[in-house]
């Protein structure tokens, strides 16, 4: 009896999460998809390394780091662009986007350098 009730509860939890998520604005959803894409790319690189071998190790590191860094910057963008977030109320979304672009360019410069 306990098992089925917990199963039911988790199902109810997922349902409520899904319905709440459907209410988020579309631009945030796009950023979420981008984050997901970046993480997925990182996972693919790790799996590739596990299969093929870690030589050259710096390439692997730079590849994974670029994905994770992009994901982190996208998350930061999402935080700043989200209208419900009270802390960043006075930061215009365009300014946040400009920061995002700038940081990405710096990150990729570093990545390119490290990749070799």
């Amino acid at each position, binding site marked *: 009896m306990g098992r089925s009730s917990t199963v039911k509860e988790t199902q109810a939890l997922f349902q409520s999460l899904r319905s709440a998520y459907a209410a988020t604005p*579309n631009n945030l959803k796009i950023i979420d998809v981008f984050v997901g894409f970046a993480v997925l790319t990182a996972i693919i690189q790790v799996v590739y390394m596990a299969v093929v071998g870690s030589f050259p190790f710096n390439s692997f590191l730079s590849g994974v780091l670029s994905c994770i860094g992009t994901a982190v910057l996208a998350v930061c963008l999402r935080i700043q662009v989200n209208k419900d977030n009270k802390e960043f109320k006075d930061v*215009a*979304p*365009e*300014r946040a986007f*400009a920061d995002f672009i700038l940081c990405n360019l710096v990150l990729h*410069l570093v990545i390119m*350098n490290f990749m070799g």
Partner: protein
Amino acid sequence: MARSLPGFLALIVAVALICCSFAAAASTFQPISESHRSAALETFDRSYGSLEETYEALQTFDVLGVERKPDVGTAACQSVSQTLVSSSSTLKDIFYALKVNGVLKCEVDADSVEGIVSTLQTAVGSASSLLEFYHSIGGLVLVKNQALKDDLYLADAEGVFRSIKALSQSDGRWRYSSSNPESSTYAAGLALEALAGVISLSSSEIDQSLIGTTKNDILKLFERVEKYDDGAVYFDGEESDAHENQGPITSTWSVIRGITSFAAVTSGNLNLPGEKILGLAKFFLGVGIPGDAKDFFNQVDSLACLENNRVAIPLILSLPATVNSLTRKDTLKVKVSTVLGSDAPPLKIKLVRAKDTPAIESQELKFDSANKVHVLDTLEKSVDVGNYIFVFEIVFNDPEHKKAYAVESKTEVPIFLTGAVKVGNAKIAVLDSDLGSIETQNLDFAGENLVSLGANHLQKLKLRFQLTTPLGHPFKPHQAILKLTHESKVEHVFVVGNTGKQFEIVLDFLGLVEKFYYLSGKYEIQLTVGDAVMNSFFRVIGHLDLDLPEAPEKAPRPPVQPADVYSRYGPKAEIAHIFRAPEKRPPQELLRLGVNLKNFPSAAAPAAFAALFHVGIGAVLLLYVFFWLKLDLFTTLKILGFLGVFLLFVGHRTLSHLASTSSKVKSA
């Protein structure tokens, strides 16, 4: 809501009166009347399929005295002769053909009669089931009654009697055959009719002990009757898949036929209580006008059997009118007749008493032989308006009739005595607490004058009147209501109180200011007096100019009245829905790889900057590719510096332009 209150009260009064008349368990039954005859023409107005249906229709018309169509008779007679001649007819067909012949009296030639008689006699000898006995014996009885053949007797009548008797059960019901344990009340009726037929066809006396046991069976059967509250008595049929038509109407009809035919051929009486026979008559009279042809036939045929039977003939006491007017000097008429409406033997009707009214004494009704009704004409001198339950008793002139007829010992009938109630001594006045009565006006309800009064919130309105019955007693109706209606159609309803001899109401406006929603102005005064036994009325008495103080801030607003009384049921105003402008949506699938070109500025200069912005980013990324492929870090950093400055400038322009447009949209 205020408008519907008097109507609602009237409805409650009407329902209460109806319930009272039922709760007294007193209801009158009416014998067969004209409405039955016209209904019979409608119900049986179609082509008949089988001989059984033809017989039912013809017998109904015959009993009710309705003219049948001539072509129906000739078609039926043809069918009868065909059936009687043919050798493949079943027993049931022959039986019903002979029944139809009994009603129509067609020409049947002697040869076919001989053939029929021999068929039936062999069938009796070889019969094993109840239906076979019933149809064959029934056919022989019909042949004998229609005098188609002389000297018709059953061989071994006693043996046939015993075989039918063998199918009986101890509870009074009969089985259909010895192999089938299914038994029913309907079968009992058929068996009794068959046994009566055997007795009438036997050449010698049947053993009296057999007849005695059959009479006991009848008494046992009558222990199974069901009863309704109004005295109707019936046999509840049994559910059966094999045999249809075993509901209460058909089963009761079958039993009535059985006992009346059995009583007709046996000497001595059946010892059945008269009230049960009367109850059976009440059951069929209480059915009203049945919609089904078979039920109609069963009802009419049962009543015809009861009309002239040797057990007890039921007599029905009925009143043509239960509502009589004292003012018009109506006399109370009571009629006693048989179930089909024929005359009763000479008798007297006594009004024993009225329930809950000791003032009405026991008296005898006079018989009007011209109209065949009993009349009570002393009412208006002694009885006042109201509703009563009169209890009648029937006394036969010849005491011998008591055994032959079944009547109810005490019949209770609800009676309404109505009359014109006079309104007298009506006064309306405006009272002041200091000065006493300011103006008193006499009200004349007969005339058309309207009074005009004025009052303020410190004064009171007083209305007083008396109601008198035709006999001069004070009368208390069910409703006495005063209604004040403002010009804006807001209504207020008050109940007029009764102090024994007169009606009086005092409206203290000081306490009513808030109830009236502080509305000053002209109020119309309307009085409604109503009861079932009087000439109810509602009249506009006059107008009152009421002066109330100003309403404070938080006072309740009067309910919004519709401009037109019936406009609240008309169509409402049309609602124009305002839809939100739909959100800007991304393309359908977010995972589709594409370029989002929304928000791309359309004007020339910003568009150029936006394009340059994208070009700049692309250039930086291209630089990185070259850096990876070929360039070294310092060269890259130099070029990156130049590109970065350019990109910053262009990006700033584009993004600030976007920001300003989006803020313009938001403020718009």
